[in-house]
């Protein structure tokens, strides 16, 4: 049951507040009883802001401070020295860090590429609205709701060289006996792309589907009148109309994949060697295994600034596309 104005009016016994102004003027500057609006606003927003200040902003400021020191969290009693920009200098000249950023870039770019191709493809197919499309859509969406760490764990089982069903299927088709996906230096970076794509192509699909459904029918009918072929229709109507949605999906995926940790840690833990050591795994090693807290704080800040900056530029671009 909807509780609208009639139901609210049951509380008539309460006298009308500020009975002065005539009805039409009420909507804009109605004086309510009880707490004033600005006070209530701050009471309502305050706790959220306080919690975020305590658990996000304060730690961020602390990280910035730590990034200029040589602090090590496993030796809390040692005197902390201010080292200026030395941590940043070390990071920008470290080959390890450049390697880890290259691994991350490979992972982010290729996984997004495949997710866009598969996601958009599936969305176009589902948009044909065949019988049962809702059922199949729900099934397709399941992987993206699962815990990435647990997904990583069970994919290591599927990738087992001896017993894994993935390897069995590959061997069945190519006939090679000792195929391995996550143990191979060349294939491991593709293994993480594969699993991430399996998990998140449905995400791109769902957002593209919303885009496709937002295109009004009459545009296609006009194209039909103009005798535009299917290819032309796709490139001059469908794609431009879906583009803002697709770009939004890419934004969210890019931020998430740039931060990626859980899936890759459980799948390959960065190996073999450091071929799949994405930025977050490297950061975890520096911060919680080597305990170079100052150094890793500087790296964390660099990563955050990169994501934040890139996201801001991208959103500007997205708004320009939307406005077109």
């Amino acid at each position, binding site marked *: 049951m909807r509780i609208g104005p009639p139901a609210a009016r049951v509380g008539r016994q309460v006298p009308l507040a500020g009975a002065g102004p005539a009805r039409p003027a009420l909507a804009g500057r109605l004086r309510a009883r009880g707490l004033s609006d600005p006070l*209530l606003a701050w009471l309502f927003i305050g706790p959220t802001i306080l919690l975020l200040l305590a658990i996000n902003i304060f730690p961020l400021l602390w990280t910035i401070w730590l990034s200029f020191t040589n602090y090590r969290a496993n030796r809390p009693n040692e005197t902390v020295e201010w080292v200026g920009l030395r941590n940043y200098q070390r990071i920008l000249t470290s080959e390890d860090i450049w390697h880890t950023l290259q691994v991350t870039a490979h992972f982010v770019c290729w996984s997004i590429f495949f997710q866009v191709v598969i996601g958009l493809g599936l969305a176009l197919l589902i948009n044909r609205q*065949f019988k049962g499309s809702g059922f199949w859509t729900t099934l397709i969406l399941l992987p993206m709701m699962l815990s990435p760490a647990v997904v990583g764990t069970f994919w290591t089982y599927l990738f087992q060289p001896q017993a894994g069903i993935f390897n069995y299927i590959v061997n069945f088709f190519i006939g090679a006996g000792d195929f391995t996906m996550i143990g191979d230096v060349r294939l491991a970076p593709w293994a993480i792309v594969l699993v991430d794509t399996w998990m998140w192509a449905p995400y791109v699909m769902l957002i593209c589907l919303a885009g496709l459904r937002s295109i009004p029918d009459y545009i296609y009918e006009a194209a039909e009148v103009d005798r535009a072929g299917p290819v032309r229709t796709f490139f001059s109507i469908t794609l431009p109309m879906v583009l803002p949605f697709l770009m939004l999906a890419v934004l969210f995926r890019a931020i998430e994949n740039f931060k990626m940790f859980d899936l890759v840690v459980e799948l390959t833990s960065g190996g073999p060697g450091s071929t799949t050591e994405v930025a977050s795994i490297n950061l975890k090693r520096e911060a919680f295994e080597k305990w170079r*807290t100052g150094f890793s704080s500087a790296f964390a800040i660099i990563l955050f600034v990169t994501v934040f900056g890139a996201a801001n530029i991208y959103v500007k671009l997205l708004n320009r596309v939307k406005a077109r």
Partner: protein
Amino acid sequence: MSPDTARSVVEPGATAKLLAAVLVAAYALVALIPIVWIVLTSFKTPSAAIAYPPSVLFSPSLEGYVNVFTQRTRQTPEYMASLPPPETWYDALVRSRNMVIAGPSRFAERYWNSIIIGFGSTFLAVFLGTLAAYAFSRFRVPLKDDLLFFILSTRMMPPIAVAIPIFLMYRTLGLSDTHLGMILLYTAVNLSLSVWLLKGFMDEIPREYEEAALVDGYSRFQAFLKVVLPQAVTGIAATAIFCLIFAWNEYAFALLLTSGNAQTAPPFIPTIIGEGGLDWPAVAAGTTMFLVPILVFTVLLRRHLLRGITFGAVRK
């Protein structure tokens, strides 16, 4: 759809539809293999789980589920022979592998932690989020857009980067490895989602309803409580499920900030693998029990999924 549009470009032909249906179904079936396979594996025996070629037909066993809940020790045949007959079916199952049950494993505890931390943080995030979302939706708040963007930007930090100072802060405050610490942390992470989603839902509730209530002498707070909240119930429920799923699935913070006491299931499941790294059925059983609630929630949520995964940026 009216019959006269049936042959236009908007409505695809029967062949096109059939082709689309076949391709989509094929993708769905292939994509579901990993999930189905892990559920099947949870009912295999350890030796069947590492058989080559992988077996699709096998006699089901509950060994994985017994193993995930128990700790077992291997015994000599003489000792086994000296034992009284097994009291329960799971005793018998374990003894058939020349082992005895030494005690419960920590899986149940970890699962329970996931439930406490998941529900605790969801409640807090939705409670705070509802209040903030209402204020952002209805009141003139100075710097509103900046505040909203600030709330969203807290999601852009890599979890490991947040974990460094949180680790130090919690160590000082004595919150390391406690339920309260994890609940507060997950609440803070989920607040961005909950504020943004709920603001979207609140924006859709017509203001006239509250204004009518105000005219009738309700205070602003009463109007919020008695008029707006009942209208927002669906949105609040959907938001709560999204927060719960995030907290349930979270791994990085749990791995770095908890160990013995407040550890949740995700960092624990990979460690189930056991002696020789071969007990895949136990891992599969733990995984299955962990995933089933999520699969149920996904089906329940399917109409709100789009909103949830885009922080309310895309609505149907």
